[in-house]
C-alpha cells in the first residue's frame, strides 16, 4: 500500500512537471471554470425567476449541487480522462505488454499514470461553491461534511468503476475512444437533481446510468436531506460496481492476446 502511494506520488509529480510547461493553460482553465460557473448560475437564476423550486430543491440546494457537479467533473478531467482514454491505444498498439511486465498491478498503472494538473483550479472552485452553498443552507457542520465526503468517495468510486468497465471493452471492440463522449452526454444530466426530471427520465438516471448517485446523492448529503437508505445504496452500488469492473478487467486480461506478437 505505502509502495503504491509512493509510486502514485512519483507519477503525479511527473505529470505536474510536464504540465508546468503550459502555464497559461492553467489560467485559461481557471477562467473557463469561472465562466462555466457564471453561466450555470445565470441559468439557475433564470429558472428560479420562473419557479420557486426545481424538483423540490431550493436555489441554495441547487447551487450546492452545481458545486458537486463541478467537483465530480473536475475529478474526471484531472484523473480519469488522461488515463482511461489511453487504454484503447494500449490494446491496439500492444503497449499493454510492457505494462503487464512491470512488478506492480497493471490496473494501477493504467488508472493512475497521468494527471491533467491544469484543471486543478476547477477542484478548488467546486469545493468553494459547495461550502458557500452549505453555509447559505445552514448545514455547514462536521456531521454533514463527513457524510458528504463519504458520498463523494462513493460517487467517484461508482464513476471510476463504470468508466473503467466501459474502456475495458476495448479488449474486444478495440475502437472505443469515444466512450468518454457518451459518458459526458449522460453526465450532463447531473447538473440538476434527478427529481427535477419527468418520472421515466428519473428512473433512467437512477437505475440504468447511475447519474443520481454521482451528484444528487452527495448534494442531498450536503443539504442534510439524505436518508440512510439512499446513503447505504450509494455505498453498495459503488462496491458492487468496483468489484464487477475488477472481474471484467481480469477476464479481459485472461483473453488478451497482444497486438505485437
Amino acid at each position, binding site marked *: 500500500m505505502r509502495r503504491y502511494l509512493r509510486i502514485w506520488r512519483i507519477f503525479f509529480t511527473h505529470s505536474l512537471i510536464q504540465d508546468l510547461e503550459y502555464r497559461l493553460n492553467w489560467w485559461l482553465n481557471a477562467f473557463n471554470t469561472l465562466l462555466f460557473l457564471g453561466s450555470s448560475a445565470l441559468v439557475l437564476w*433564470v*429558472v428560479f425567476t420562473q419557479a420557486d423550486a426545481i424538483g423540490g430543491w431550493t436555489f441554495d440546494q441547487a447551487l450546492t449541487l452545481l458545486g458537486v457537479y463541478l467537483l465530480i467533473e473536475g475529478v474526471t478531467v484531472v484523473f480519469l480522462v488522461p488515463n482511461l482514454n489511453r487504454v484503447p491505444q494500449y490494446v491496439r498498439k500492444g503497449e499493454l505488454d510492457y505494462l503487464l511486465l512491470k512488478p506492480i498491478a497493471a490496473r494501477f498503472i493504467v488508472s493512475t499514470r497521468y494527471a491533467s494538473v491544469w484543471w486543478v483550479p476547477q477542484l478548488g472552485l467546486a469545493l468553494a461553491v459547495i461550502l458557500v452553498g452549505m453555509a447559505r443552507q445552514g448545514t455547514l457542520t462536521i456531521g454533514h461534511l463527513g457524510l458528504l465526503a463519504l458520498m463523494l468517495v462513493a460517487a467517484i468510486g461508482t464513476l471510476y468503476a463504470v468508466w473503467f468497465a466501459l474502456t475495458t471493452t476495448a479488449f474486444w471492440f478495440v475502437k472505443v475512444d469515444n466512450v468518454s463522449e457518451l459518458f459526458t*452526454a449522460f453526465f450532463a444530466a447531473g447538473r*440538476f437533481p434527478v427529481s*427535477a426530471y419527468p418520472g421515466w427520465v428519473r428512473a433512467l438516471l437512477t437505475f440504468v446510468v447511475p447519474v443520481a448517485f454521482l451528484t444528487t446523492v452527495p448534494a442531498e448529503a450536503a443539504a442534510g436531506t439524505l436518508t440512510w437508505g439512499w446513503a447505504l445504496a450509494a455505498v453498495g452500488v459503488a462496491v458492487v460496481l468496483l468489484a464487477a469492473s475488477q472481474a471484467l478487467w481480469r477476464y479481459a486480461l485472461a483473453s488478451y492476446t497482444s497486438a505485437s506478437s
Partner: protein
Amino acid sequence: MTTFAANWRKGRALFVHAFASMTEYRAEIVIWMISGSLPLVMMAMWIGLAADGPVGGYAAADFAAYFLVVFLVRQLTVVWVIWELDREIRLGELSPKLLRPIDPVWGHVADNLAEKAVRLPLVLLPVVAGLWWAGARLPLTPESLGGFALLVVGAWVIKFFQQYATGLLTFWTDQTVGLERVWFSVSMVLSGALAPLDLFPEAVRGVLPYTPFPYLVDVPVQALLGRLAGPDLLQAFAVQGAWGLAFFVGSRLLWRNGIRRYGAVGA
C-alpha cells in the same frame, strides 16, 4: 474554361471526396450527435418544471418544441475546424496543403458540408419523432421553412468563420483551443441553447441583440416556431449576414498575416 466552371469542378471534387470519407465515419457521427444532447437534458428539466402548468408562458409541449428545434439547429451547425487547424499548424501538416492550387479553407468547408449531408437524415429522424411524441405542432409554412433554412446556413457561416479565425491564431499562440472553450461556454448560454432567451432577466436581454450569439440558435429556432416573420425575419437575415461577413473578412485577414509567419518559422 471559365473561372466559374473551374471553381465548380474543384468544389465538386472536394465535396465528393469529403462525402466518401465522411460516410466511413457514420458510427462516430452518431456518437458526436449524442455528445451534443445537452439541450435535451435542459428540455427534460424545463418539462419537469412545467408539469404543473405553464412556466413563463411556455407549456410542456412548447418547451419540447423549442428544445428539439434547438437540438436540430445545433446539430446542423456543428463545427470542429479549430481542432484541425490547431493540429495542422502546430505539427506542420499545413505545408503540403499549401502546395495545392486551392486555398485550404475550401477543403474544410467541403468536409463540413459533406458531414452535414451524412448527419442530416440521422438527426431529422429523432427530432421529428420527438416532436410528434411530445404533441408539438410547428406551423410549417413556406416562410417559416425557408426562413429557417437560410438562418441555419447563416448560423453555420458565423460559427465556421468564427472558429476558423480563432484556429488561425495558432500561428501566434498554442492556446487557441482554450480560447475556443471560453467562446463555447459563453455562446452556449447566450445563444438560448439552455433556456429560452425571452425568459432571461431584462438586463441581459437588452444587451443580447448587439452580440452574434442569438443568431446562432435562438433566431433560427424562432423562425421555425413561426414567431419570427415578415419584416423581423428580413432584419434577422440582414444582421446575421453582417455578422457572417465580419467573421469571414476577419478570418481572411488573419490568414493573410498568419501564413507569412508560418513561412518565417520555416515549417
